[in-house]
C-alpha cells in the first residue's frame, strides 16, 4: 500500500513533543523542509540528534523546539559558528539546552550500535581526548583478547528519523547517490522513519539498479515527495548547495531579532515547501542547477 503523504501529515503523525529526532544527511540531502514543518507545528522539548546540527538545527533551536542537542560538530561549514546554538549553549536562550557530545566517528558508531541492536559499539576513538570525561555514553573498555583497549559508545536509537533521497517508489524503496553520510544508519536506528524524496519513481526503476538502493521499504513509515526539500542543502544531480544561504546565515542569525524575522519570513510565513520554493524564486533555483552528467549505464543482465 502506498505510504505517500504530505510533510504536514507525516510530521503530525510521527513527531511528538519530547521526541528524540535524527534529521539525517551529511551536508548532502539535509531534510530542511521537514525541519521547517516541525517548527511550524510548534513541537517542543525535542532531543535533536545530528552529527552536524548545521543550519537546520540552528533554526529549530532558534524557534524554541529543543531541550537537548546530541552532536559531534556544531558549526557552519566553511563559515564559522551556529549563532542560535551558541546562544542556547552559552546564554540559555531561547531555551536551556543539554549537550551530549561526540566525535563524528563516535557518533556514527553509536548510530551503528542502534542500527545493529547491539549494547555498544567499539572504536579506536576519543584517545587522549577530554571528551569521554563529559559524556557517560562513552567508556573505555579493555580488550577481552589481549593487551589492548578501545572506547565503547552506547547505542543511539532516535524515536524518529527523517531521511532524504533522490527518488523512491510509493512504498519507500529509495535510490540515493552522491554522499550517503549516515542516512542508512539513521533510518535503521530509529523507531519511525519519514522518507522524503525529490521525485517518485516506479518499483521497476528501483529494481533496474538495486545497488543504488540505500533504504528499503520495510524501514519506512511515511513517504513524502517534496522537490527542493533539502534547500539550502542539496540533492546531487538535482540542485547544488546554496552556499550563499550558508554564508549569509552568520548575519541572519547573529541576533535574536534577525533570526526571528527570518523564521517569520521563511518558516511561519509559508504553508509548505512549495510556497517556500515560490518565495525563493525561479532565478535562484536555476542558478543552483548543475549541468547534466550521467553515469555510464551498467548491464545487470537478464537471467531466465
Amino acid at each position: 500500500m502506498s505510504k505517500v503523504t504530505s510533510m504536514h501529515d507525516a510530521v503530525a503523525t510521527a513527531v511528538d513533543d519530547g521526541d528524540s529526532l535524527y534529521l539525517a544527511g551529511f551536508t548532502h540531502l539535509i531534510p530542511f523542509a521537514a525541519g521547517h514543518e516541525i517548527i511550524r507545528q510548534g513541537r517542543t522539548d525535542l532531543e535533536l540528534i545530528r552529527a552536524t546540527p548545521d543550519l537546520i538545527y540552528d533554526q529549530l533551536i532558534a524557534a524554541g523546539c529543543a531541550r537537548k542537542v546530541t552532536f559531534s560538530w556544531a558549526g557552519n561549514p566553511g563559515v564559522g559558528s551556529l549563532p542560535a546554538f551558541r546562544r542556547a549553549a552559552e546564554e540559555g536562550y531561547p531555551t536551556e539546552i543539554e549537550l551530549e557530545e561526540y566525535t563524528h566517528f563516535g557518533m556514527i558508531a553509536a548510530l551503528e550500535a542502534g542500527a545493529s541492536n547491539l549494547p555498544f559499539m567499539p572504536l579506536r576513538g576519543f584517545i587522549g581526548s577530554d571528551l569521554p570525561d563529559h559524556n557517560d555514553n562513552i567508556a573505555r573498555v579493555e580488550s577481552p583478547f589481549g593487551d589492548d583497549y578501545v572506547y565503547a559508545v552506547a547505542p543511539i536509537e532516535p524515536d524518529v528519523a527523517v531521511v532524504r533521497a533522490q527518488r523512491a517508489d510509493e512504498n519507500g524503496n529509495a535510490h540515493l547517490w552522491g554522499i550517503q553520510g549516515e542516512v542508512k544508519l539513521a533510518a535503521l536506528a530509529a523507531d519511525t522513519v519519514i522518507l522524503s524524496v525529490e521525485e517518485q519513481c516506479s518499483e521497476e526503476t528501483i529494481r533496474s539498479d538495486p545497488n543504488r538502493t540505500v533504504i528499503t521499504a520495510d524501514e519506512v513509515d511515511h513517504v513524502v515527495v517534496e522537490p527542493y526539500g533539502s534547500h539550502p542543502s542539496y540533492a546531487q544531480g538535482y540542485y547544488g548547495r546554496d552556499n550563499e544561504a550558508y554564508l549569509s546565515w552568520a548575519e541572519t542569525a547573529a541576533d535574536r531579532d534577525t533570526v526571528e524575522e527570518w523564521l517569520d519570513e521563511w518558516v511561519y510565513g509559508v504553508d509548505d515547501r512549495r510556497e517556500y520554493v515560490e518565495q525563493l524564486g525561479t532565478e535562484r533555483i536555476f542558478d543552483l542547477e548543475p549541468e547534466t552528467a550521467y553515469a555510464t549505464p551498467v548491464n545487470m543482465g537478464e537471467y531466465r
Partner: protein
Amino acid sequence: MTTDETETTTETDTERAYTNSELMVVAAARELESDDSVLVGIGKPNLACNVAKRTHAPELRMVYESGTIGSNPKTPPLSIGDPGLAAGALSIEPMRNGFNYYLQAGRLDVGFLGGAQIDRYGNINSTVIGDYDDPIVRLPGSGGACEIACHVNRTMIITPHTERRFPEEVDFITSPGYVGGREGRAELGLDGGPEAVITDLGVYRFNDDGELYVDSLHPSATRDEIQSKTGWEIEFADDLQQTAEPTDEELRLIREELDPEELYTDQAE
C-alpha cells in the same frame, strides 16, 4: 574558522608581493608528497592540497570526511560535503566506512586540522574556551578532528598565530597531540602525531620530546613577535631558516584558479 585574524603584506625584492595567508597555503602544500592520501579540510588545507596536486604532487589522493575518495573538485568547496567533491570522485563511502576502514585502520597519511588553541605538545582545543559546563565560548567541537589526530601519520595544523591561540596548556583536549610527550602518546597506543604547525609567522615542528619549536620564520616575522604571542618559552631551531617564499606559479594557482574570490586567502594586488 577560515578567516585569519592577522594578515600582513610582504614586499619582496621583485615587484611580486604576497600575503602571509598565501605563504601559509604554499608552506602547507610543500609538506605533501605525491603518494600521500590526505584527509583534506576546508579552507586553506583544501587550497594547499590543490596547489600540491597541481605542482609537485600530481598523484596526491584527496579524501574528505564526507566519504568521498579521490575527489577532484573543479572549484574549492565551501564545505567538506559539497556536490563537486562527489561528482567525479573515485569512490563515495558511507560515513561509517570512511572513519572505520580508512581512517581508523591507518589508510590515510596526512590530515589537516585547525583549532582555537594549540599547546606546546600539539594538543588541540576546538571544543570550549573556559569551563566545559559553563563555557565562555562554545566552539563547534571535534567533528572528525579527534580521530584524525589519533590515526593519520602526519597531522598538519594550520592556524594564525595569536596569543590566545598558543597557551601553554589548552582549556580542553579535543584532539591529541603528543599528550605527555612522545612517550605519552606511544603509551596511549597512538602512532604518528603532529608534524608541523603552519602559521602566519612561521613553520613550527616538534622535537624529540614532542615539544613545539620554531623551524622557520616567515620573511616578515621576528623571533620576538612569536615569543610575545606564545604562552611559554618557545624554542627556536639552532639552524633557524627563513620560510621559502611562494613561486609565481604557486601564486598564480591560488589567485587565478583556486581562490579567485579571496574566500580563504587575503591576496596581494
